[in-house]
């Protein structure tokens, strides 16, 4: 997680806090003397620079948590219940299944490249090139596999314009309803706070560090 959030912070803080013309930058906190220029560092930009990446981190964590703790069958059954188009459901389900396979394949491509003389004791730039040498074979082989899988699916009646029989079943329990209502309530409350207490730069231009 730090791997995702910190680089973004490193990027966001300088960009947002310096006088690059962002409309919400008002309070000057510090003045930097850089390259002979007198640059003001704004509080708002600084604050935003820290909070935005953190929010992104929270979103990603939530998504990962969901993915890792949900039973696949339950997830697919839920998608069917929501009556999403079948092709979409297939996309989600196939991704769940096929990512581990891709990981295995990257491993074997890596071994194959090592056997062909791939060097790992090299500079960062060369390491980026090495990355390409792993990704390109993976992409090409995946494209080939996609075609085979597509014709296999077609041969099993994938495109038949009939309602598909749902293999997994799921029922909403009382706990689920309770959870949904709580979640909705909390969201509404937070939304209210957000708008009225002015954490958004679109409602009030002046906002606190906690925003």
């Amino acid at each position, binding site marked *: 997680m730090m791997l995702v959030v910190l680089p973004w912070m490193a990027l966001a803080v300088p960009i947002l806090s310096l006088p690059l013309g962002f409309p919400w930058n008002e309070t000057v906190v510090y003045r930097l003397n850089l390259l002979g220029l007198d640059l003001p560092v704004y509080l708002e930009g600084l604050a935003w620079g820290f909070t935005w990446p953190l929010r992104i981190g929270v979103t990603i964590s939530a998504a990962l948590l969901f993915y890792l703790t949900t039973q*696949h*069958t339950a997830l*697919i059954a839920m998608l069917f219940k929501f009556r999403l188009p079948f092709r979409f459901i*297939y996309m989600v*389900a*196939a991704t769940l*299944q*096929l990512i*581990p*396979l891709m990981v295995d394949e990257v491993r074997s491509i890596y071994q194959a490249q090592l056997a062909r003389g791939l060097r790992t004791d090299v500079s960062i730039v060369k390491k980026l090139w090495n990355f390409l040498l792993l990704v390109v074979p993976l992409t090409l082989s995946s494209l080939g*596999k996609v075609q*085979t*899988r*597509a*014709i*296999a*699916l*077609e*041969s*099993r*009646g*994938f*495109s*038949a314009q*009939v*309602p*598909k*029989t*749902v*293999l997994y079943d799921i029922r909403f329990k009382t706990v689920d309803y309770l959870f949904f209502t709580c979640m909705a309530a909390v969201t509404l409350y937070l939304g209210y706070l957000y708008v009225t207490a002015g954490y958004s730069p679109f409602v009030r231009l002046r906002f606190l560090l906690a925003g």
Partner: protein
Amino acid sequence: MVLEAMQDILMHPIVVEGFSYSYPSKPNVLNDLSFRVERGEALGIIGPNGAGKSTLCKALNGLVPHFYGGRVKGRIYVVGMDTLKHTVAELSTKVGLVFQEPETQLSGLALTVEDEISFGLSMLGYPKETIQERTWQALEKVGLQGLEKRSPFELSGGQQQRLAIATVLAMRPEVLVLDEPAAQLDPLGKTQVFNVLKELLRDGATIVVAEHEIEELATFTDHLILLDGGRIVSEGVSRDVFKQVERLKSAGVDPPSVTELAYLVEKVCGLNRDHYPITVDEALSFFLELLEDGGRV
């Protein structure tokens, strides 16, 4: 004349008439193919790589031309249905196609073996009870009982191919078409797959197999088609096709070792027998006979 042709089409599970096909990017992959498959028989398709075996298999279930586009001449009738006039989904209940790659042809949607087998039926919207019943039957037919709850990706190659066959069997097709099913399998896997096919034949299935495993094909096919450059170079009863050792070799296909041996023995010793052995058992009796005759012409 028309009535006879129609009867022909209705009585044979597969009727190919003057079929030619060109992919959008590759012309003349199949040239003027004509043959019939009888009910309950096993047809083997042999030929060098690039001869069009895969394309022919895909033409039998409608993928060619519906999925690939391209130009078609002639017709293929599967259980009386013209493949040009029916979708692949419609044909999937008549023709089941099993591909070479054991893992890649799995749907990727099913989390267990039994769900994978039910996949085709659920795509076609069959009711749950039918699906469960047929899934169980297909599972037994291919010998994968006990593995229903496993993930399809945890199986060995031979097991995955048998799973693919089960998936297709669940849809109760009239014809089973297999495109090099043993190509990517280890010897054990190959044996397992061919045993399943022989079992199915005993139950009266109609099977078309494109393969390189000549020795195996010799043990169970009734008819053979030798394909080269998209044309039928030789066809007929398996035994007769295998006998044409020279023609097979010039097309880049090796006949069964025992057949080739018998052929060479004849050439060298100047013997003249009217039949060659095509399996090891036949070879045993053939050569014992020869030895008994003392090698006399």
